[in-house]
């Protein structure tokens, strides 16, 4: 049993492996921000589950709400101007009902986060050893010596050579890949049950990306850890995630186990994401298959399907009413589309997307140009 007392009631967490049912359950999570321009509905009704030791991929463009989602689940958003509703149940505890004192027992110890940019996420004026040791001292009650030697071991386990020396280094002395490894070491220091990795490889060289992801996968297996991999890059989750959620404009538009998602894609948006990945096999000079237009305004999202303004297969029904998240056949494949793809092809004719409408992103009711 773990859980340290800190001037309030202490929380208890069962040991790894003894969890019955899903480790993390998110149900109908909404997160909005009050801004001078209106209320931005960044996360608009997201639900999913993660089981122990499994990897969930959350994929979406910038602005899909995935970063807000990850922070909202953890409870790391600033208290002011944020409205949150829905449940987030982690290992039987309701995170949304906990205040900061209680959450601090969870953060770092049971649930931790790997941030996107290690240059800004690591304190520039503190040695990396100290930054790792902090969590160890706090949650596991280690003294300085023990914490330092454990930190050295952690650095070794994430593949940093000569850890005894480097434990005294500062972040700016390390390369990007190294820093990300340090981040992983920090996140994993107290052997949390779930790690939220927010774009852990964006900005790294491709070879380094692969190394980092492999490292994460290895450690995950060793420790029977669950991982949520948040990224805009489908390629990253293709071989690493057990299940994938595709987000668009604050909502989940498709959810499936990885193989199913790739082999039996139902949402045109997901298909478009896959098509936009340039492939080595493509002839040089081939045009990039980007998705036209921009994500919609989340203060006033369009009526109907939010992807409709940019979807080549959008019909009137799509623009009028929003498709619910439903399944047909297998219960673990959910999608939100009136005209889902069948065997990778659409059942309705493609229509060139009108750029002006797709750029507005707003109620695609009036579209100029081609229809």
């Amino acid at each position, binding site marked *: 049993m773990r859980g340290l007392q800190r001037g309030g009631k202490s929380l208890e967490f069962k040991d790894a492996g003894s969890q019955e049912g899903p480790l993390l359950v998110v149900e109908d999570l909404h997160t909005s*921000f009050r801004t001078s321009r209106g209320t*931005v509905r960044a996360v608009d009704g997201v639900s999913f589950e993660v089981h122990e030791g499994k990897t969930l991929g959350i994929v979406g463009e910038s602005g899909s*709400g995935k*970063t807000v989602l990850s922070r909202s689940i953890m409870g790391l958003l*600033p208290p002011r101007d944020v409205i949150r509703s829905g449940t987030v149940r982690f290992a039987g505890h309701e995170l949304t009902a906990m205040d900061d004192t209680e959450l601090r027992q969870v953060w770092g110890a049971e649930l931790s986060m790997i941030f996107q940019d290690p*240059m800004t996420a690591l304190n520039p004026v503190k040695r990396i050893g100290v930054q790792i040791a902090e969590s160890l001292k706090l949650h596991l009650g280690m003294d300085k010596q023990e914490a330092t030697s454990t930190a050295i071991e952690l650095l070794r386990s994430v593949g940093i050579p000569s850890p005894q020396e480097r434990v005294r280094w500062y972040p700016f002395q390390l390369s990007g890949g190294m820093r990300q490894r340090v981040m992983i070491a920090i996140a994993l220091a107290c052997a949390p049950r779930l790690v939220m990795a927010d774009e852990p490889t964006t900005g790294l060289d491709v070879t380094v990306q692969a190394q980092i992801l492999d490292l994460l996968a290895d450690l995950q297996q060793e420790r029977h850890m669950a991982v949520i991999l948040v990224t805009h890059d489908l390629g990253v989750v293709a071989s690493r995630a057990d299940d994938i959620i595709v987000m668009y404009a604050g909502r989940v538009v498709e959810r499936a186990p990885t193989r199913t998602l790739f082999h039996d894609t139902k949402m045109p948006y997901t298909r478009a994401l896959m098509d936009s990945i340039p492939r080595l096999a493509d002839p040089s000079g081939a045009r990039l298959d980007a998705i036209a237009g921009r994500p919609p305004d989340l203060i006033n999202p369009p009526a109907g399907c939010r992807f409709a303004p940019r979807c080549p297969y959008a019909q009137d029904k799509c623009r009028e009413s929003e498709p619910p998240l439903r399944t047909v056949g297998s219960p673990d494949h959910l999608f939100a589309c009136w005209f889902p793809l069948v065997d990778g092809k659409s059942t309705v004719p493609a229509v060139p997307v009108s750029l002006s409408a797709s750029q507005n992103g707003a109620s695609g009711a009036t579209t100029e140009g081609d229809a």
Partner: protein
Amino acid sequence: MPDDRDLLDTQSSDGMLANRIPMTAATDEAILDMQSPAVDPDGEPLKRKPFGVLFWFAVGFISIVVLSAVLANLLPLQNPDFGNYSSLNQAPSGAHLLGTDDLGRDLLARLVFGARVSLIVGFVGVLIGLVFGGTAGLVSGYRGGRLDIALNAVSFIILAFPAIVAVIAIVTFWGASLVHITIILGVATIPLMYRVIRASSLSFAQRDFVIAAKTMGATNTRIVLREILPNVIPVMVTFSLITVAGLIVIEGTLAFLGLSVPLPTPSWGNMINEGTANNALSTDPWIMLWPALFMFLLLWSINLIGDRLRQRFDIREGVL
């Protein structure tokens, strides 16, 4: 396993910035925008935070002071330079709204005319510093190179130099008059302006948008004027206002040394000095109190306005 290339690749972190996904979508803007202060509990859309009552009071106060100083000759004031020997050291009364000093001069008149000195020394002095020091700093921060190193050294030396000696020497040598003092103090602010604006210019000169402008073929002049200057203006404005306040104080210190505008011309500095000499404060507090109070309000107003303006330009406030 990491290879050596990875270990040696310390420089790659700078490349990372270029690969970053641009944050353009509404959600990310929302996170940035989240930093706005006041919240309407009903979730109604918010207006921009207004400057506040204090701000407008400050603006009003400064306006009154400036207007009366400018129009002093037209106002129904008594003679500030010569007094009536039969009414020395009087407390405020109907005849003399603020009282008289120890030479029988009307304090209200002296206060209004004295405002001119403080305002001119403050604003014109800063203007001098801004024009010379600010321009030098702007260019120097952007260009760097030997000119930058030389100017840095010069400004450091000037700052290290005990200012009082220089000021006393030069004022004594040249003679104390409003014009001379303004110029001397104005020149004295040049190294400060230079440093602050240079630092700001430097920080923007290294940003990507400047490099982008260069690669598009913009000339240096254009870059400095169109890219860097607009970004430096908030700092310029704030710091200028702080410096105005500083110069007004320095005029007071000069008066303390007897080096401000020569009597009988009033300045708030020499009025305060007269009012505190020989323990006059205990017996005739009005002589010192009025200029001290007005100077206090003026300085306070200037600083407040400077800060509010800075807040308006500055997007960031508040997360933890």
